[in-house]
């Protein structure tokens, strides 16, 4: 009996000691921010750099003394790209961890899955996913009250591509897309905006995210003889499709990739087949190429340097979405403290001319994305690296 008591007593003592030691830095208090990313699983190429970026920023901020003397406590959960998990994690963040704001999730699907929670628990959420549906309520035609997002929408990427095609006098196009959320959403926008830019879609092909070969789809496209091909996918298939395209001798048809192509690894994997491919990219991908007077030159260069120094891996543009989201929250926290409603109002009314990784953000009551198609630079693959297209 006594032994047990001693054991309990020691445990309690140790616990108290732990409590006393942990806030070693002299912070006034903590600001809690939640983050949900698909850090593992099939879509980890999105969530993993986002998680690393968010953790890096939190560390930098706390080292520099926190936000107005408050420690920034970042609570990260992994969704694995699963809607159910995302729902559970965000609910836990909002009700149990009682965070002031949530950044993420990484995917359009998981973001749409947690939308109702942000509205219900009145907590601001800044999604890191592409679809415009996240910030557009079909019923009201306006954004959801508590939900914002940082990545450019597919709409902008499509407009950037279409605008360029129109300039070049091309109107007969073929589209290929992967049957995942990303591909389907991009395909939807390609079809929806085609009439506006007078594009005639002669082929509309799809492939699965784990397909081994897309020669059949590309052959069909070849038969339709389009003036340009637009592919909308992420992951290894966007490389395979390029190789199949080259193998079929179709390299003289201009090939456009979506903004999902924004990793140098893809160029390398394509083994030469990516030469001459166009894609719209945010400034974050091409910090080195930006002219010195570009307003984003400073933030993008610093982020790239910090990230590569800390993690010793090439920068992925997806991490930039988390950078934008977390820095906005931090800015709001520093101005209005940790009141959730005030943070939301601040985001909506005072994020103007915010220089981020992926563009210059201007949020308003009607626009919870804050970017225009100018957030994209048209880039071409040249000698195995990016180059700005004319």
């Amino acid at each position: 009996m006594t032994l047990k008591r001693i054991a309990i007593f020691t445990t309690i003592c140790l616990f108290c000691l732990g409590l006393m030691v942990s806030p070693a830095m002299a912070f006034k208090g903590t600001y809690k921010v939640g983050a949900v990313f698909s850090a593992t699983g099939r879509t980890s190429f999105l969530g993993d750099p986002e998680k690393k970026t968010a953790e890096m920023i939190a560390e930098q901020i706390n080292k520099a003394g926190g936000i107005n003397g408050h420690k920034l406590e970042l609570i990260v959960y992994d969704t694995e790209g699963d809607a159910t998990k995302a729902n559970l994690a965000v609910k836990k963040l909002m009700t149990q961890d009682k965070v002031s704001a949530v950044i993420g999730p990484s995917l359009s699907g998981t973001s749409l899955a947690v939308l109702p929670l942000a509205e219900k628990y009145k907590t601001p959420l800044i999604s890191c996913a592409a679809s415009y549906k996240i910030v557009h309520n079909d019923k009201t035609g306006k954004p959801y009250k508590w939900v914002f997002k940082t990545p450019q929408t597919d709409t902008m990427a499509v407009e950037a591509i279409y605008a360029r095609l129109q300039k070049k006098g091309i109107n007969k196009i073929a589209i290929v897309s992967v049957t995942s959320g990303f591909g389907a959403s991009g395909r939807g926008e390609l079809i929806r905006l085609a009439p506006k830019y007078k594009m005639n879609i002669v082929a509309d092909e799809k492939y699965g995210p784990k397909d081994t070969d897309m020669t059949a789809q590309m052959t069909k496209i070849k038969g339709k003889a389009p003036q340009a091909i637009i592919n909308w996918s992420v992951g290894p298939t966007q490389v395979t499709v390029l190789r199949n395209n080259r193998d079929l001798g179709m390299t003289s048809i201009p090939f456009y990739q979506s903004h999902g192509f924004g990793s140098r690894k893809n160029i390398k994997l394509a083994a030469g087949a990516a030469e001459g491919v166009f894609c719209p990219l945010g400034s974050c991908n091409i910090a080195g190429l930006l002219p010195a007077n570009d307003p984003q030159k400073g933030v993008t260069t610093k982020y790239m340097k910090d990230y590569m120094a800390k993690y010793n891996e090439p920068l992925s543009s997806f991490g930039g979405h988390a950078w934008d989201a977390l820095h906005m929250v931090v800015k709001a926290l520093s101005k209005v403290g940790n009141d959730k409603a005030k943070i939301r109002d601040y985001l909506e009314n005072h994020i103007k001319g915010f220089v981020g990784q992926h563009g210059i953000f201007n949020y308003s009551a009607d626009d919870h994305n804050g970017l225009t198609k100018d957030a994209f630079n048209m880039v071409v693959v040249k000698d195995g690296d990016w180059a700005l297209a004319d």
Partner: protein
Amino acid sequence: MLRIGKIPIAVFALFIIAFPWVTHEIPSIEHYTDIMIFAGIYCLITMGLSLLMGYTGQISIGHAAFYGIGAYTSAILTAQYGLNPWPCIIVGMAISAVIAVLVGAPSLKLKGHYLAMATLAFGIIVYIIFNEEAAWTGGPDGMTGIPGLSLFGFEFDSVKKYYYLVWIFVFAAFIFTVNIIQSGIGRALRAIHVSEPAASAMGVDISRFKILVFVYSAVLASLAGSLYAHYLNFINPSTFDLFFSIKLLIMIALGGMYNIWGAIIGAGLITFLSYEWLYYFQEYEVIVYGAILLLVTIFFPKGLVGVPGIVKGWFRE
């Protein structure tokens, strides 16, 4: 195996009733009630599957499809046509039943691995339809705007309220399933599992019983899908993919498929493992998950419900 005692049922019921009140008092596990809602939803499916696989010996790797059909029927009828959710849930169950008959009648003539492949194929085809028919289903991004449930003006809008709603359904299904097992139908099913020719010689109409159980399990899965859709207010196809069907299989195998308690324990355990406990392993999660699964199959081939028997065996030695 056919006898299911009253005392365990009472203990189980008390546990379920008390669960939210107990966890509410402990801040670090407050959200367990939320996870238990999903455990309950999965229990509905695994109970039906346990009857199909454990008691009848028919494999299905396609039940995610019925789960999805229930969810999408509810979602489309309520979100796009603004109907009351309750009749939509019933419609979903009816549609699932019809599809189960259409698919089951030819499939259940197949044996072993052939049946596994047929159900697998069915599951994948339905999943592709969810993805492709975007005008109805919203495509891979999923559907939003699915309303929550309410009854006579009482809204099931909090975690605790929905918890009790789901578990009332689980209990109803549990009692119903136990009754089936303990009735003549249950004995007929056991006979089919042991030997089809013998059962047939005894005058058991094998194909009718098999289809009946298949339909029953499909209807339960459909109900579970509807409950899921109305709780999350959102669905997307990847929830209903092949890997979910395999997860159901794992739940049943882990819990023990020759016993209805196995279905419940397996569903609860896998839900908590994959949504909570394995989280601490982060990247290693997959490996730990695989290892647990493998060790249980090797050491407890009858699942976790077989553990007490094995322990008893040790003491006898």
